[in-house]
């Protein structure tokens, strides 16, 4: 509309453009509401007093905020508090595995041309698409034999998450390294550094934000994952596994379900907000 008001001669209202814009914004508004309303209810239910949660119809805007539901959720099962720490352990171990092993391969994919590269790339994709249960069940059996199943430090779970995340990390880091002109490295090599020196002085600092984003993305994935976690743990579950059992068994206990769901959601949402630019890039570089 700005253009129309700025134009020296007004030709008339451009109805087509007007309808187009209106439709666009209506669609945006509709989809934003569709996405946000459920999230809104998850959080307000989690923070509402129990009386409000179970009033009928429940208020759209809670009168008082309370942490009672979270307290209830965190104390209902003695496994929950230790499982939070364990979830962090799993996620961090997964990050270390994925970034070190996947980062190396990603660098190789980005910088070198070698035989079998295409096949390797596709196999990475293939592994990623392989259903989690189909690997997790036999893996659990293997780890039982090795005595690594359901250990207090959830190494089995981290190793399993490593499989999918190495593949993802290879793709992400390869694109990060590709985005850093090779000549920057070569210039450093000409001026006095070894290849490794050039990597650490030039490439790594330039790649750091992207690598951090990849790490956070891995963290979110490991923190969220529930199917394999329920398969590969019993007495030493992650937060996702124990919350899953709590929430699934609590049909009708809205305050407990929403508290558990909201508690799980915080880290994912906060981290996503931090790296949103990168996630959008990973999803195909949308720029509206």
């Amino acid at each position: 509309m700005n253009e129309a008001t700025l134009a020296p001669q007004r030709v008339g209202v451009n109805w087509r453009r007007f309808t187009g814009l209106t439709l666009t914004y209506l669609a945006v508004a509709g989809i934003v509401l569709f996405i946000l309303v459920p999230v809104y209810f998850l959080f307000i239910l989690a923070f509402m007093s129990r009386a409000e949660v179970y009033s009928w119809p429940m208020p759209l805007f809670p009168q008082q905020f309370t942490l009672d539901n979270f307290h209830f959720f965190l104390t209902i099962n003695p496994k929950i508090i230790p499982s939070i720490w364990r979830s962090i352990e799993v996620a961090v171990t997964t990050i270390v595995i994925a970034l070190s092993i996947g980062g190396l391969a990603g660098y190789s994919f980005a910088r070198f041309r070698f035989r079998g590269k295409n096949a390797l790339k596709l196999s990475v994709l293939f592994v990623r698409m392989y259903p989690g249960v189909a690997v997790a069940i036999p893996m659990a059996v293997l780890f039982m034999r090795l005595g690594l199943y359901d250990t207090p430090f959830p190494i089995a779970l981290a190793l399993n998450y490593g499989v999918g995340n190495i593949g993802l990390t290879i793709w992400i880091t390869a694109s990060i390294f590709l985005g850093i002109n090779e000549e920057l490295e070569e210039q450093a090599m000409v001026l006095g550094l070894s290849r490794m020196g050039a990597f650490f002085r030039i490439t790594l600092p330039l790649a750091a934000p992207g690598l951090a984003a990849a790490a956070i993305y891995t963290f979110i994935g490991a923190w969220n994952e529930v199917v394999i976690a329920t398969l590969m743990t019993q007495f030493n579950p992650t937060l996702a596994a124990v919350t899953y059992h709590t929430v699934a068994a609590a049909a009708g206990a809205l305050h407990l379900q929403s508290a558990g769901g909201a508690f799980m959601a915080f880290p994912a949402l906060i981290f996503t907000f931090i790296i949103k630019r990168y996630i959008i890039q990973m999803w195909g570089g949308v720029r509206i």
Partner: protein
Amino acid sequence: MAQVRLEKVSKRFGKRVWAVREFDLRVADREFLVLLGPSGCGKTTTLRMIAGLEQPTAGLIYIGERLVNLVPPRDRDISMVFQSYAVWPHMKVYDNIAFGLRYGRRKKGFSKADVDRVVHEVARLVRIEELLDRYPTQLSGGQRQRVALARALAVKPQVFLYDEPLSNLDAKLRIQMRTELKYIHEQAGATSIYVTHDQAEAMSMADRIMVMRQGQGAQLGSPNEIYFRPANQFVAGFIGTPPMNMLEVEVEEDGGGLMLVSPHFRIPLEGETAAAVKGRGVRQAVLGVRPEDVAVSLEGGDFPARVFVVEPQGPQQILSFKLDEALILKSLASADLPVSPGQQVWLSFHRDRLHLFDRDSGVRIN
């Protein structure tokens, strides 16, 4: 001090692709040598092998008297200016320039004050002193180019390598930088090897030009030699705009003298050219005539032709003549000549500047 020598250097990519093949080159100390050729001719690969960024598949590379095949780039005592400038975006201009003095082999013997002195010295030389505190993202393309240059100068190398350093600049800046680069080369007193596909750049800067084609040297010579005595049809066609006219001719004897004969014209051959042709017993050849050596006249000449298209170029105009369906001859004529399409004019070739090439091998005959 530092001549650069390549002996039978080859580079193969993968199993079959030969980027460079048995390439010999000798660059004299303090020479400005340009590697010129179309894209894919192996010139950049050659430069990268001299830098040590690529390993030759076979052959020897010397810098000075030292065999450097196994020497990593950092120990070759070279500098390189890349096409992308490769100015590190996470370092200030100052740190970019100081880099080579701080790390690796050269850091020995450079105190902080030394580094500072050198950085300012080279920054002054390329006129970016006031930019030292900036980050590269705040600079224009031309300024980044100067940073790359300063960085290369700072380490005072024996050999400068340039990989199409001006190709990302706009036309005006490119011509300005050409002059500055040449001046800097003279100041630095080092050997320079410069890769480009731009013949104007090569002609204006080089002491000698090595024209490359399909991984091999096509001709090595001074700019004038390359232009006025191209060694073969490839070089003749590659250098010069508009490109040299190539005409298939028969050689006929005509009462003791020699005539070049085509369906459109007959011209007598004289002097040493005739002697060379006679000596070899050539019957068929390709005649090369540069457009500026095709004189256009309204009164008379070697043969008549009709103007096909007129392209004004300011002081000059390019005239095209369609001799037959497959043959268009171009002439660079003065803009004062009043011609229009369809008009009949007379053409004559500058006799001292005829180039004759073997029809099969393309090698120069005269």
